[in-house]
């Protein structure tokens, strides 16, 4: 076993408890989705509002649908359609991406109080 192998095993061991906590924490329905294009935050959208979005990516428009608190890639210009096959997402922490089109969706529940930069009233 080389030094690099040992370091890899060590980092895996360190990461294990966090992975456990991440996957075994109670699942909550998401309220928002963050859409990133080319790694840049494009939009934060509420899953309360049913709508269809056309998000422009590297290869064209990905069609993202929101319905009854769920979100999915309805269509995308990629050939594999893996993003579409990911199906509906509804729980916080869920994630789907169309890698060829460089578009990703990450779901959030916003349990934290600072989900907005500022509050208007």
């Amino acid at each position, binding site marked *: 076993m*080389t030094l690099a192998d040992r370091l890899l095993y060590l980092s895996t061991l360190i990461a294990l408890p966090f992975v456990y906590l991440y996957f075994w924490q109670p699942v909550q329905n998401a309220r928002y989705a963050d859409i990133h294009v080319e790694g840049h935050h494009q939009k*934060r959208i*509420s899953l*309360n*509002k049913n709508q269809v979005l056309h998000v422009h990516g590297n290869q064209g428009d990905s069609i993202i649908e929101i319905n009854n608190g769920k979100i999915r890639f309805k269509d995308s210009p990629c050939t594999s359609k893996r993003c579409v096959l990911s199906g509906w997402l509804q729980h916080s922490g869920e994630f789907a991406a169309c890698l060829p089109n460089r578009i990703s969706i990450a779901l959030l529940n916003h349990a934290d109080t600072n989900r907005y930069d500022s509050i208007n*009233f």
Partner: protein
Amino acid sequence: MKKFFVVFLVAILLGGCTPKPQEYRDTLFVFGTVVNITLWGVEKTKAEQAIKDIEKDLKYLHVVWHPWRFGAMSRTNELLAYQEWFSANPSVLPVINKSKKLYKLSDGLFNPAIGQLIGMWSFHHDEILDGPAPDEKKIEAFINDLPTMDHVEVDNFRIRSTHPKVKLDMGAIAKGMAVERVIDYLRQAGIKNAIVNAGGDLKAIGNHGDRAWSVGIRHPRKDGILAGLEVHDNESVFTSGDYERNFVDEKGKIRHHILDPRTGYPAKGTQSVTVIHSDAGLADAAATALFIAGPSQWLKIAKQMGIQQAMLIDEHGKVLMTPAMAKRIQFEIEPEQKEIVALP
């Protein structure tokens, strides 16, 4: 392979060293309210200096524009009572001139000349206490001989009133103009990304890093956020609501501070109005005017004042939105009734 693992591990470890987002937040208790300022991508020393300067400026403006405490506006009011021409203090002229224009555009619903009426209702105090509503006859007498911004004449730097009851209270525009001034200062200081929130009303410039500023609009009747929206460069979001600055009168009735100059009483029919516009002073005055206009007239007044993006929640909780507002708003609490209504 060995090299790959080392590079992989180093990359992971270095990931932890990534600097935290450059967000600088500060809260000021000035201008009779709480002012929250968030800056993005500004060096800490520069941010601290900017906040200090802003605090000084807002303290100054609070004194200058306060109609009831010794300062330029209260002195202006004393001199207006003589109904003779005098040389106005330059610090109050911009807000008076802007108010005259907005008074006309709002069909008189935004009327800062009714300071005496505001005083009758005791809404001029910083803290609003429960107590009796003013005498009906006094209100009636005031409304029958209503002072307006048309009674305030301006000739360059000279000014006079042609009505003995004119008393200027800029409460429905001062916050907006102050926010505008803070934003101007930030721009001059080379700060490109900021959000300035004065007592719930705000203006943003630039972005929050690689995304737009995210703003939540508080629900007028429930705890929590009614809706969220992205606020872009040079946009202000102002809300007037009946849940702010109110008191319970001797009959147990809740009386809020948005007075209808047509009746002399708190405006009816509306819970809140939210307006988005590039000019914070205009957005502030328009939110008040549309609130007073109510569900039957708000679209007409919005159009006259150049407001494209507005939302009104009527007394039953029904949400009315202009098409431009509906496009960008994301409800957190879905309203039972909502309607998109086009401007005339």
